[in-house]
């Protein structure tokens, strides 16, 4: 008991001796060509701050000092590999964790048509969403198509009629910057025989709080049944009224998309 008290007391006493501004480290920089790749890709982690180390892992949980220290570029070959990294340093609070998931090529998409994006964020032309480029969080880069309209329609033509297991869409999320995931993703598949589109699958997304910073966030839409097709139609519904917790509630949100994969 006395020991415990002494400990508590000592902490209280000693703390003010060291009281000063303490700062958190900023997150390390993850550098890669694109999160979308064929074959193999390389991840570099940058953090030029003396007396610190970046620890990383591939197991999906929060990195600790027990995880390996980043020393040289990582080679990525498998689909959906997630690298998490965090900077630690003696004089500072550890950084936030940064994370990137690498996404491998899927079925060949022959052509794509989509609603024209806002003039400010046109991407890099009609093939922006199938060019294997993206996964960075910079809206100014030409990998993103940005929309602030009510509905976005995308049509994909596959190279051939084949079994489609799921559809992946990669979005940007930065509510502080008015960039929300769509509130609804609806996917249809085309039936050659009846020459009609049928529901493939959908997701409704609720946002009850802002996430931290800017992140890429991919969503996978799975069908309820086995589907064979060569054409897919996607409807995305950007958030029309930003929710009550947002400082600009009621305003129309933005939606940014940079890639679509079909597996």
């Amino acid at each position, binding site marked *: 008991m006395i020991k415990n008290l002494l400990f508590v007391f000592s902490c209280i006493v000693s703390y003010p001796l060291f009281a*000063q501004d303490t*700062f958190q480290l900023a997150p390390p920089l993850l550098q890669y060509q694109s999160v979308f790749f064929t074959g193999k890709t390389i991840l570099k982690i940058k*953090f030029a*701050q003396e007396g610190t180390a970046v620890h990383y892992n591939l197991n999906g949980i929060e990195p600790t000092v027990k995880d390996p220290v980043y020393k040289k570029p990582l080679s990525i070959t498998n689909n959906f590999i997630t690298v998490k990294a965090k900077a630690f340093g*003696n004089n*500072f609070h550890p950084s936030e964790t940064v994370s990137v998931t690498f996404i491998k090529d899927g079925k060949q998409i022959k052509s794509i048509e989509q609603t024209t994006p806002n003039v400010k964020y046109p991407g890099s032309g009609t093939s922006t969403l199938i060019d294997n480029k993206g996964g960075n969080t910079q809206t100014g880069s030409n990998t993103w198509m940005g929309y602030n309209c009510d509905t976005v329609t995308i049509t994909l033509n596959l190279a051939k009629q084949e079994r489609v297991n799921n559809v992946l869409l990669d979005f940007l999320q930065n509510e502080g*910057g008015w960039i929300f995931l769509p509130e609804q993703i609806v996917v249809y598949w085309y039936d050659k025989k009846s020459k009609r589109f049928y529901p493939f699958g959908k997701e409704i997304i609720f946002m009850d709080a802002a996430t931290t910073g*800017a992140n890429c966030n991919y969503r996978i839409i799975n069908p309820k049944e086995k589907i064979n097709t060569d054409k897919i139609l996607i409807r995305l519904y950007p958030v029309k009224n930003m929710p009550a917790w947002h400082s600009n509630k009621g305003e129309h949100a933005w939606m940014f998309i940079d890639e679509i994969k079909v597996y």
Partner: protein
Amino acid sequence: MNRRKFIQQSAIVTTGLACMPSLLSAKERDEIILGHNNKRYRIDTKWGTLDFNRYPVKDCHEMVQDSKGRIILLTNEIKNNVIIYDKKGKLLTTWGSDYPGAHGLTIFNENGAEVLFICDNNRHQVIKTDLQGKVLLTLDYPKETREYNKAEEYIPTETSIAPNGDIYVADGYGKDFIIQYDSKGNYIRHWGGRGTEEKHLKNAHGVCYDNRDKNNPVLIITSREQNAFKRYTLEGKYIDTIALPGAWVCRPVIRGEYLYAAVLQSQSRLWQQSGFVTILDKDNKVVSNIGGSTPAYNNNQLDEMYQTVKAFQYPHDVCIDDEENLYVAQWNSGHVYPYKLTPVV
């Protein structure tokens, strides 16, 4: 001290050390030093803190020091647009309620009398005042350039005054032109603007008269969204570009042989409070980043710079006093008052 008390205190020290290994490095912890090479600093985030109810701030945009050594802060809070401190952070006086878009602040010694130039984003004007706030001259939007149809297109962010009194205005949130006037406010010329050539500017947020080379003074102008400074002759002829990859630099500030600038944010983490402060030597090479990555050149190319320590959110200006201390004013950072940084010798 009696023996019993001595033991008690020893116990406290040992338990403190044994149970809290992170405090073992207490000495180092005491010494948080930011920056690199010969430009390293201790930081005091409480330096400028005032009673918010009496002396509120919104964005703390810019700071200068007058010849009496006072530190003058410009904020867009119309309860007190100008807040004047001594170097210890003691409030001396405040004035100003007419500058809702107060943004740029420059001091100039005009034949012995010091004057201020305030750029107001909302009023679309540049206003010259004395140190007590009396208005001496107002520059409206520059119709003479034939580049503007209405005042709203002109959103001046910064001025710089040449020794002959010529006024250079950077229209950093408007059309990115630099407009040169004589000391009376008569239009002389303009240049810059947006475009695809090197001489063009994107977010010409700051302008500065650089006389570090006494025989060859030049203007250094910020092209913030291009992460660069650009150098021009005093007549507006483009000279060259100082690339600062990754850094959204605000206005350049010259003191001695060095150029200092607040970096609003890192290109790699836009709009995520990722700012720092950068310092360039007389050859315009980065020698120190306060709260930022260790500067490194490879084949004369500067590596991308970025925030490494969250010491600042969105630093907007830096002021260097006569004792080489730094003061940092911040934009959109939770109404925070300026910080002071003291050099580590």
